[in-house]
């Protein structure tokens, strides 16, 4: 029931409970500090891109700016609009923050995975993994949490009792529901490649010296590049980050679903948004780049796991900020077209191709011919899709259908 973590497989005594509590506190603190730094990092990097200075007063390089802003938010007046649905209005920010926290619990963030080690560490005589929980359902839990994250946004917009927030939240829910399918299908490709749902298992499958001794066994390569690209795009849409931030397009919607929020309730939305960015980067690293797996150079092995994990995660966070500051926002119809007509068919087709490949391997069929037939079938499907989209566009232009 508790999955693969050796800590909970034996007798559960007081020491085990204390270790679990320690891990909870450590992960909680890590996530909060990482979010704080991410907000600062994003502001600073965007400033650099835009030839500005950015936050530079609080602390060295303005690193404490987020803390200062947080304290300021605590002391601001907490407004609840007259026409707001009081209870739901108060509940909504909490519903955004809680899934953001829970999402990180399944991410492995350290441990020695080199030379056949399984990434476990010894704490006070107990063996455990450096991740909060390793349930058998693993990555499905992440999908579940990202699918309920939409409630916070949706209810915030509805309960504000105001027009722009409502439009923003309807946009948000349509967008998040559309992109969840592409997200899930690209996770499926990873699960098919590694043969396990557990995040620890997924990291284990990517560890080792790799092909030719130096090309790592990452799912980025093993599952083909397509699931990675689809996941990266879909995750940005799922996070409502630019260029997919139609949810809070300021020019059209004022501030969208959190227009009516102020004080600490607004801060909760803000924190949840950046926390989700951090967690999504961590999940991309786990799924496609081997998480904490990497070579140990000197010193303790588990520390190198943490270092590799942080390095890979920071690279993705930089990529997120880079995209945000350079790519303009897409239109709403482009957003929906990309989700439904490009990403979903692409990831579905790729998943079927991967499945064909694995079946051919199991059954000792001729791999080349099988994949060739699969590719032909896939291309035929693509042609049919193209034809149907063209037909529907032509009919719409003729005015036969709405």
């Amino acid at each position, binding site marked *: 029931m508790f999955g693969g973590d050796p800590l909970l497989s034996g007798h559960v005594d007081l020491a085990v409970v204390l270790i679990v509590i320690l891990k909870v506190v450590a992960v909680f603190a890590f996530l909060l500090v990482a979010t704080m730094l991410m907000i600062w990092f994003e502001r600073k990097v965007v400033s650099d891109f835009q030839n500005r200075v950015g936050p530079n007063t609080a602390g060295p390089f303005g690193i404490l700016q987020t803390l200062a802003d947080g304290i300021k938010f605590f002391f601001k007046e907490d407004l609840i609009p007259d026409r707001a649905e009081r209870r739901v209005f108060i509940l909504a920010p909490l519903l955004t923050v809680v899934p953001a926290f829970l999402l990180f619990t399944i991410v492995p963030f350290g441990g020695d995975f080199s030379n056949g080690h399984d990434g476990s560490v010894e704490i006070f005589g107990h063996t455990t993994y450096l991740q909060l929980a390793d349930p058998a359902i693993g990555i*499905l839990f992440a999908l579940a949490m990202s699918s309920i994250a939409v409630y916070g946004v*949706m209810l915030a917009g509805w309960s504000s009792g105001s027009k722009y927030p409502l439009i923003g939240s*309807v946009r948000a*829910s349509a967008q998040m529901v559309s992109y969840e399918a592409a997200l899930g299908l690209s996770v499926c490709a990873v699960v098919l490649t590694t043969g396990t749902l557990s995040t620890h298992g997924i990291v284990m499958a990517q560890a080792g010296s790799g092909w030719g001794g130096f090309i790592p066994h990452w799912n980025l390569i093993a599952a083909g590049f397509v699931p990675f690209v689809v996941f990266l795009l879909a995750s940005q849409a799922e996070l409502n980050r630019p260029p997919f931030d139609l949810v809070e397009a300021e020019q059209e919607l004022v501030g969208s679903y959190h227009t009516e929020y102020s004080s600490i309730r607004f801060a909760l939305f803000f924190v949840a948004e950046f926390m989700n960015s951090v967690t999504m980067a961590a999940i991309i690293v786990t799924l496609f780049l081997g998480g904490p797996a990497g070579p140990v150079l000197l010193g303790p092995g588990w520390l190198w796991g943490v270092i590799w994990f942080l390095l890979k995660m920071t690279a993705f966070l930089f990529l997120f900020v880079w995209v945000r500051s350079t790519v303009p926002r897409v239109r709403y119809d482009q957003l929906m077209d990309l989700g439904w007509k490009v990403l979903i068919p692409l990831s579905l087709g790729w998943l079927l191709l991967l499945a064909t490949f694995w079946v051919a391997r199991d059954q000792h069929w001729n791999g080349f011919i099988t994949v060739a037939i699969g590719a032909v079938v896939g291309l035929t499907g693509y042609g049919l899709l193209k034809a149907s989209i063209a037909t529907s566009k032509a009919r719409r232009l003729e005015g036969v259908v709405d």
Partner: protein
Amino acid sequence: METAVFIVCALIVLAGGLGVVSSRNPVHAALSLIATLFGIAVLFLNLGAELLAVVQVIVYTGAIVVLILFVMMLLGVDREEDLDTEPLVGQRLLAGLIGLLFLGAILAIIIVGKESIVTGSHSVTSAISPTVSNITQIGTELFTTYVFPLEITAGLLTIAVVGAVVLSRRPRDLEPIPEPESMTDMGDEPLTAIPEEGAH
């Protein structure tokens, strides 16, 4: 421990169910439904059915109730409703009676059957093989024993999707109803020029 979790979850499920029935506001009813579905997910976990629990959250809480709420917000039916008048006369009385009958039937089964009845205990709902994870078992069963029902369900869902698209995108009426006389441009004078009557 298991009993404690069961009691807490059962209370949440029941409170959520009552909330669905008695909320004046449809959105509050949907929120209560979410509480109920979450409680059921934790009950599944309590029985060791992790996959069912997470599928419950992804499918019901994460998709179906989201769609329900979405439609409510789009159509603007999220106003308070009057619960005092019954839309169907005698409906509540009948519902209460049938509910009591069901409760009686369940109690009767428990009293008559004593130990031999299905109670949802682990002896009944546990995995077929304790060593293999239940995700593997469900997957294997679905794609071997139950592969035909699975394919039929997939076909049914596809038909439903195609049907929904066909119904919602009906061809437009090729001969549109002519607009009322007063709104059409007769060609005599521009529409913008409103005849002035009296002084401003």
